[in-house]
């Protein structure tokens, strides 16, 4: 039992170890992508316990930088189908268990 418990812990640690931000799908330009990814990482780290505030921070910063009507979803388990403006979508994983989806559609 202790072994399996340790195994699970290791598993979880393993996942945490791979907590680097990983882009799952995007069609943004290079610069925009890098900036957005960094912003998401900052926000998620800052509001690790509150997804809503993190999303709020991301959305407001994106609105200021890249123009109005960005939408942000942060969570651990959800499915989605969105319409987005071409070259304005970023879908990435972070922290081993968080998924962030950012898109623009006015």
């Amino acid at each position, binding site marked *: 039992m202790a072994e399996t418990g340790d195994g699970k812990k290791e598993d979880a640690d393993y996942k945490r170890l791979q907590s680097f931000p990983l882009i799952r799908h995007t*069609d943004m330009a290079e610069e925009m992508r890098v900036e957005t990814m960094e912003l998401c990482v900052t926000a998620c780290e800052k509001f690790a316990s509150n997804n809503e505030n993190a999303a709020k921070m991301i959305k407001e910063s994106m609105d200021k930088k890249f123009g109005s009507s960005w939408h942000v979803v942060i969570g651990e388990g959800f499915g989605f189908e969105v*319409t*987005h403006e071409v070259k304005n979508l970023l879908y990435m994983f972070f922290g081993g268990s968080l998924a962030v989806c950012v898109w623009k559609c006015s």
Partner: protein
Amino acid sequence: MSVPHKVGTVKSKQATNVKAPVAKVVKAAGKKKDEEEATDTAEGEEWMPGKTLVKPPDQLDLTEEELNEEITRVLTANNPNAPQNVVRYGFKEGCYKPIIFVDQMAIHFELEGNLVHKESDEGRRLMAKQAEREEGTGAEKLDNVAKAGEKERKLTNQFNFNERASQTLNNPPRDISCQTEPPPRANFSATANQWEIYDFYVEELKRREKSKEKQEGQVLNKEEDKSKKKIIQAETQSDDITQLAHAAKIIERMVNQNIFDEVAQDFMYFEDAADEFRGEKGTLLPLWKLQYDKAKGLSVTALCWNPKYNDLFAVGLGSYEFTQEERGMLLFYTLKNSSYPEFIFNTTSGVMCVDIHEQLSYLVAVGLHDGCVAVYNLKKKSDQPVYNSTASSGKHRGAVMQVKWQKDDLDSNHNFISVSADGRVVSWTLVKHELVFTDIIKLPATDKVPDDLKDVIATAGTSLDFHKQKDYHFLVATEAGKIHKGSKYYSSKFLETYDAHFMTVSRVRWNPFHPNVFISCGWDWMVKIWDQTIKSPIFTFELKTSVTDVAWAPYSSTIFAAITNDGKSRDHA
């Protein structure tokens, strides 16, 4: 109108009572005046020629006596409009009392003036104000005075000024509206679960490990790069350019095929109606002429078809003149695009022979004029050969005349064999990054060379061919006119030697169908067909000039083609 008149003046006298209403008198006087006016005018006009007297209708008819009566008129200062019997209630007496004195003044015209006496209070005040104002503007006025000399002050009148306004032409307003196209949109859907995230991370880690391995390893697997790119979907500029190159290539081919359409048709189906009349002979139609500008000055030294892609063939360019500059090229043409070569490789010295691997059609071996052999990989984009033999690694001391690929050896390394003018037959093996050479056999010296020099002066090998079925048997032709049959496993001696030609044997080839037959051609104008078991040739053909190359037809065991020095090609059956 003057009252006293000469004739017929009427003076009316009426006793006027002060208190009597004056209105009547006025009226009466008015009437009289009217009368007088009428008579005046009548009198005034009497001296004018004959006008009768005009009487107003309501004029009093008076007798002449009454008319001549003098009536005196008295003008008094009494106001006829003033009331004459005003009574006022007196509180003292408790009854109405008549007022005797009534104001008789009748005001006909009233005008309020704005003149103020200097000495009065108001006058003095105004004077003081004016003095202050004058002091304020005194300085300016002094200046003005000083400038212009003595000038009288102009008093600006607030009420006397000119106002002028004008309006420029305003362009009429116009409504224009416009709607930009909305930015393009796309749909995207995905699911975010714990397991999906985990799986993706695991994949990513695997990918990263693999890429690290590959960096150490040799060959990069391009498919994985493509899959990585698909996932990241980063659109970089280089992708766009390569896609453009691909499209441009296709278009170039299409254009060429359109231009050379007839030629392509001939290539596929060539039936010359004149063939029926020629009897045994047929016609040979040259189809394409392939030229490359930078290859001017170089002669074509070698040709090789690609076994896998039927339209691709390799051309080796060099020079037969040994004194000329050392430069060479390896070009690959495809029949689909006959105007420009597909691949171009520049070599340090002239190319003497080319061979393409049977299975791996991207491996090309070339033998160079300076004795080097090189292997090019067509899949790689670089201009440099993948392998190159150097002086230290056993390159030939003479020009390499022929190279031929062999089957992979036991270690599954690719290898090929070359024969050169220094008399050595060498097998080269592609081991990792190097070419490892193994001398297979050395061509024996001719009899004419004295014994002590046999080791030094070598006989040049000119052609090499391997048996189709028995891979270890090969034929080597020499400059001395001999053909040696050797075996790969037997390195010291030849199995057989045939005295083939008097001069250099330029080409020897096995028959692709008959296991024992081979053909050779030489500069002694002869083409000979041999059976390997018999020492003398089976057939001999004499052509008028030296034969430089001979080849079997791939579809028939009895047809071969020969090329001679006079530029003619002959087919024999």
